[in-house]
């Protein structure tokens, strides 16, 4: 996968690896308002997904992997009324 930062957008493309998490984190730490564009992503790594869930940036598009499109993408975009963590 490649992570490409273009201005206010973080483009995440292709199949993901654990290493992708770090550049995404750095980019979002620098500017939390950046948009993460997943429209050309195939399948994200768990580390990336965890990061997106924790930081909740605005998301555009969804990974093409059927499982992630159906079950993971809704969790990433359901800002605010997402799953209520148990605790």
């Amino acid at each position: 996968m490649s992570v490409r930062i273009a201005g206010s957008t973080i483009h995440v493309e292709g199949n993901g690896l654990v290493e992708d998490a770090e550049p995404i984190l750095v980019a979002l730490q620098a500017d939390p308002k950046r948009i993460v564009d997943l429209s050309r992503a195939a399948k994200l790594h768990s580390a990336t997904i965890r990061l997106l869930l924790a930081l909740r940036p605005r998301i555009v598009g969804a990974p093409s992997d059927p499982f992630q499109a159906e079950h993971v993408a809704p969790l990433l975009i359901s800002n605010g009324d997402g799953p209520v963590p148990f605790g």
Partner: protein
Amino acid sequence: MDELLEQFLVEGRELVAAAHEALAVLTGDPANADAVDRAFRAFHTLKGSVTLFDLKPAEHILHAGEDLLDRARKGAAGLSSGDIARLIAILDQIDRWIDALEREGEIEAGAAGIAERLLIGAPRAQAITPADDEQQASTPAEPWLAALLERRAAVVAQGEDALVAFRYAPDRDAFFRGEDPLALVGGVPGLIALDILPPDGHWPAADAIEPFECGMVIEGVSAATPDALRQSFRLVPDQVRFHSLAARAQPAKGDDSGLPLAASVLRVDARRVDALADDVGELIVAANAFAPLGDRAEALDAGFALDIRAAQAGLERAVGRLSRSVSAVRLISLAPTLARLPRMVREIADGLGKPVDFAVSGEQVEVDKQIADGLFEPLLHLVRNAIDHGIEDAATRARSGKPANGQLALAVARDGDDILMSLSDDGAGIDRARVRDVAVARGLIEREAADALSDAGTLALIFAPGFSTAAAVTGVSGRGVGMDAVQAAVERLRGGVEIESVPGHGTRFQLRLPANAITTRLLVVEVARDRYGVPFDQISETVRVGADRLIPLGTGTACVLRDRTVPVLSLAGLLGMADDGGFPAKLLVTRAGGEPVALRVDGFHERLDAMVRPPSGLLAGLPMVRGTTVTGDGAVLLVLNISELVA
């Protein structure tokens, strides 16, 4: 018997077996969360069911066991081997009390004391009060499950089928090991809901998050079977927990829905199935009536005979299918029966001070209920015998370089229409010379005859009534019930026992039993103008021999068959009648005490599959009569027990 109690006897034993199974897993893998869960549920349900009866002591020890498992489940403390031993002891005691309930309708007076002893040293169990119990019943067993069901109530409520909820908490260092937990979850079949949650309630802030730490919990609901789910998570079993949800479960009742997914299983009173089997047997007999009809029609009208035969063939096919279906209904797994053996082995081994490792395999084999019911006693007797007489004391084992624990194994396997059960021990084996000496000393056999016996014949002596090789009668075996009881019980089930024994290395008893027991294959023989049925399983072969092959031997007659001299007896003579003495002589070869014996009959007739009814009335007192059956032409046929006749 009270219906509730009857149900408890069945279900209680199933729960004991389920808990034992989970504990067996935990013995090898004490951290297995799924096994802890299963054991907990079995203890919990058992505790709930004993409250229906007056079984306070049982309730107490189950509560203690449940407590222990609950701590392990909540991760407060893992199960030590001592904990597992205690849980096994609790289950054994419950099993004993279930037996007592069945026998006497109550548990013994000293039960409270037994419970006290079992509880000494147990982590302090909270006192049971009704209020406590109620609270426990209404609190879902697992907090995560309650939260998941609440979040996902909509999908769960929509599910037509049984569902499984899972919670997968990957290790924090999973990423470093190259794992991608969500990719694993992507392979879960039938996924209908998924949540990804922070493990401790909230996600770390942007400036505190460690990107390569796998801090996440994945929960979901799947419509796949529990087995399919376990298969998906097979590489991380210690990080996943499952919970089965019955179809259209009330979401909040997490605990009830934890029962096995068995909504389509119907429990039917065994007597109804027996009655159905009886009727099928009668139907088979009625269908058999067509064969002679066809023969009679043949003489009148060939075309008519052909039609009858076609109708007969169709009827036989349908009856055959029905009979197989009914047989299948009666088939039950041996597991519940055999689940009681390990406890018995522990008790016997403790009583004799001989440590024994006992392994059971193939217990899932299914057999007719009648067989499952009837084989426990003989099997237990063989087990006792193996531990008492087969396995040596510690000193002798040490001298022979054997492991300190005696090895006892029971293997069950299906072999065509039969099941084979082999019980092997690694003990001293059977000393043939001693067996012969004892048999002679007890007057069971003459010295000369004893010395002439084949190896199999010698070993078969231990089944002779009145035989016991134990020099000292111990408290375990030899209470006046010898191995002859084993053979008699196995023969009642239409089975047989074989022994293999290597001195110094051990003994193997092999029981061969029919897996299905509704109809018996019979050969109809003619004796003194009467007809009798002889079960096929007692016939080794049938031969016709000329006058020249019958040799006078002493006061009797013999015949050489396959290079062996086989005594020939007249079946008519044994029944107090005279045979016709015609030639060629028709011989039916059977075995008596491991040796072949030929019975002379006047004629062989048809073979038939018949429902043999146990003898009743006057016949019940005659051991040589196995039962009666009705033939196609409506006549009653006596079915002979020829092994009893020649014994």
